[in-house]
């Protein structure tokens, strides 16, 4: 782990680490997030370091709240930073759109970490359009070193315009590693004062109409800043022009020769005069950007407005794809119009059948137990499994197949209500503890309000596991000198008026199946809370009580029930024997609880 607190020198940093160093050098006093890949490491680092940095940091209950708390800090004159994954900005878009009307006083950055190729996401939306929708300025770094420097630049833009700035990254920036030169730490201001200004901060219709005009004025001022910004620069000469931003710049710079490159770092508003001047001197230009033709369409518009008759190649001309992230390979399709470096002939792929290796629920994962229990209780009934965003999404794989419908955080429970009202199928929703606090409470209340007879299974593993084990309201907070008690899920659910509420231990699969059968027969909203801590989290905190399962070969008749129902990766069948791998097995006893011949013993 690099040391982000020392001044000077050079270190090899992950993009997300470089961003944290940028915050330290910019004197950011307030940060908030809801964890989401590829931005999660920023939060994990701040959880550890915020006290040493002297910054206030929180994991908020969702992205909307995260943006609101940071908005308040910046409106009080404290430099703030809110960060999230791309789909998180959908959740936070509501406050962002009107915050643009009010603006801020201290600098504020809104980081959106987009995920081209959807490595760990449900879509690959291009959030650059949010900058045009909200009229907020936007910057896009290309690599870790760029990102660190751009944090400071973005705060300067934000304070000059009194507007939040969108800081747009992608997976190959957040999870790239490069050499970063350290400057010095800045003084940090963590407390401000909120000077009231009703016409600015209270957007009732009469004021909103005026603030819209103020925002358009700031947008014109932003355009002037963009025209003169060093973040938008031309490199190299030649009559072939390349316009690019983000990580695509690194591919163009390293693998295309004999071209002049306009690297755009300040990408909303784009520098219109600079682009027009650049294009005018070229035989043609190629726009290289991932996902949608955000820059390309603006270049085409600028050419049309300025009567520049220079061909613009890119996605609209069919030279480059609109789907999936780019790599040096993407440039091969530009062979006819650019001097692209040639690459060696790759080896033929293996022709023998290789076993698949998708990500999977861990050995001893309590979600396995709950899924096995639900499957057993449901039997042949016609049900729709509405799942959600988290490790438990992996239940989509065999042998569980417990995901029929997934859209977004909290979306499964909402949809379950709709399936209940519009079909005769029984709707079962799965949701993690962190997801429940994020967006699960309104759909539960909706089910109660409209009498949707759904079953909501809250998979409470006492952490936000998928993104790297962040705390959530259900665990309480224990960092940065602030200690809070956990919010009790069962009491909260009962408070909404749900009468069927049961908390179960998913390691006891038969008992869980019994409770779930009752839930299936219950005439009303039923909530089952599967409560068991994530073993990975316990391992990290050195709280896991070691144990292992031993299979008695004289009793085991190789029926395979354990393999087929729990499918724990610690279990394997080889040489005519079923065995538990002691290096993986944690001794949870899920397999023992389903064994029809009691052949498995848990040893501590």
């Amino acid at each position, binding site marked *: 782990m690099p040391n982000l607190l020392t001044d000077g020198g050079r270190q*090899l940093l992950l993009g997300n680490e470089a961003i944290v160093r940028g915050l330290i050098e910019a004197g950011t006093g307030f940060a908030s997030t809801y964890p989401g890949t590829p931005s999660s490491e920023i939060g994990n680092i701040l959880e550890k370091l915020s006290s040493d940095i002297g910054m206030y940091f929180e994991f908020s209950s969702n992205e909307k709240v995260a943006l609101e708390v940071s908005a308040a800090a910046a409106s009080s004159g404290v430099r703030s930073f809110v960060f999230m994954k791309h789909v998180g900005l959908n959740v936070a878009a509501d406050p962002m759109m009107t915050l643009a009307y009010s603006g801020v006083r201290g600098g504020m950055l809104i980081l959106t970490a987009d995920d081209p190729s959807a490595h760990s996401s449900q879509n690959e939306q291009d959030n650059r359009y949010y900058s045009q929708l909200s009229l907020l300025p936007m910057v896009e770094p290309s690599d870790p070193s760029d990102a660190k420097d751009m944090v400071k630049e973005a705060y300067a833009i934000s304070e000059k315009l009194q507007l939040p700035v969108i800081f747009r990254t992608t997976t*190959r920036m957040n999870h790239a*590693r*490069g050499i970063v030169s350290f400057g010095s730490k800045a003084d940090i201001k963590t407390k401000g004062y909120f000077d009231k200004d009703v016409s600015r901060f209270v957007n009732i219709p009469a004021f909103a109409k005026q603030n819209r005009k103020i925002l358009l004025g700031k947008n014109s001022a932003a355009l002037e800043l963009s025209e003169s910004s060093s973040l938008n620069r031309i490199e190299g000469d030649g009559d072939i022009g390349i316009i690019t931003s983000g990580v695509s710049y*690194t591919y163009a*710079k390293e693998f295309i020769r004999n071209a002049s490159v306009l690297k755009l770092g300040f990408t909303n508003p784009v520098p219109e005069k600079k682009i027009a001047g650049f294009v005018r001197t070229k035989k043609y230009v190629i726009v290289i950007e991932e996902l949608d033709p955000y820059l390309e369409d603006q270049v085409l518009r600028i050419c049309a407005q300025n009567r520049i008759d220079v061909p613009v190649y890119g996605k609209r001309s069919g030279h480059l794809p609109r789907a999936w992230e780019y790599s040096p390979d993407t440039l091969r399709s530009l062979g006819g119009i650019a001097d692209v470096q040639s690459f060696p*002939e790759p080896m033929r792929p293996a022709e*023998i*059948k290789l076993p698949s290796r998708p990500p999977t629920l861990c050995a001893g994962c309590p979600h396995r137990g709950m899924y096995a229990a639900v499957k057993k209780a449901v039997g042949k009934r016609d049900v729709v499994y509405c799942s959600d965003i988290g490790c438990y999404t992996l239940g989509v794989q065999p042998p569980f197949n417990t995901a029929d419908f997934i859209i977004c955080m909290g979306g499964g429970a909402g949809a379950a209500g709709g399936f209940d009202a519009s079909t005769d199928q029984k709707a079962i929703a799965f949701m993690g503890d962190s997801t429940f606090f994020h967006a699960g409470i309104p759909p539960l209340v909706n089910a109660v309000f409209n009498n949707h007879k759904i079953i909501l299974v809250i998979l409470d593993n006492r952490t936000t596991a998928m993104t790297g084990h962040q705390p959530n309201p259900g665990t309480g907070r224990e960092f940065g000198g602030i200690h809070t008690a956990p919010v009790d899920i069962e009491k909260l659910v009962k408070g909404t008026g749900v009468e069927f509420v049961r908390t179960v231990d998913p390691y006891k699969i038969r008992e869980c199946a019994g409770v779930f059968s009752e839930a299936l027969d219950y005439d009303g909203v039923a909530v089952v809370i599967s409560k068991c801590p994530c073993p990975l989290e316990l391992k990290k905190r050195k709280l896991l009580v070691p144990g292992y399962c031993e299979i008695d070969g004289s009793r085991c008749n190789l029926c395979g029930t354990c393999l087929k129902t729990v499918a724990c990766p610690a279990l394997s069948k080889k040489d005519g024997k079923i065995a538990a791998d002691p290096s993986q097995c944690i001794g949870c006893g899920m397999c023992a609880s389903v064994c029809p011949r009691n052949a498995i013993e848990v040893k501590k």
Partner: protein
Amino acid sequence: MKYSIQIVGVGGQGVLLASMVLGNAAMSMGYDVSMSEVHGMAQRGGSVLSTVRFGDGVCSPLEAVGSADLILGFEPVETCRNLSLGNKNTAIVMNLDPVLPSMVAAGFEEYPDIEILKKEILSRNSNLITVDATGIALKAGKAVAANAVMIGAMAAVKGFPISKEALFEALIAQVPEKFRELNTKAFEMGYEAVRRRRHTPQTFFKKNTERRRPSVWGKLNR
């Protein structure tokens, strides 16, 4: 000079640690470095890939397919899955110890015979160096040191541009104090295992050699 390494393996095998060691060692030798890592969902027991690129003017974190100078394979099937990352001249260092995917462990899919995997590679590339990293690590003291064995093995690859000393320093800086002795031993043993073989060339796959029948694929040759 530019050099690209693709590290492939399974989440939890130490692919990220190895890439950090390589990146830091390259930086200490004064090279530009650009790397790409896999975090998040894929780490849950899935296939992982890290790219480490260094040299003059390197800035792209990704490499084109076919362009790897070296493939460091922590796991045999993962190495075979990613052959297209390299070309016929790529150096391939492969650990022989398999990590069984869950569907194989449960008996739903089969893991190919190691000899067949080796032949699959050798029919495309004659630079394969196999290392019994887990076996060597056990001799050094503990199976977890397998990644130190692999890093040591790589240091002995002919023409590898990072010095053995720089790699060793970077490795030791990454491991906790109490594991330094173990990792030092494992690194040296990995280095020696490959250096010795440089003087006694392996028998390479012959084009007409008959392939083993599929019926033996399920048995692991450990």
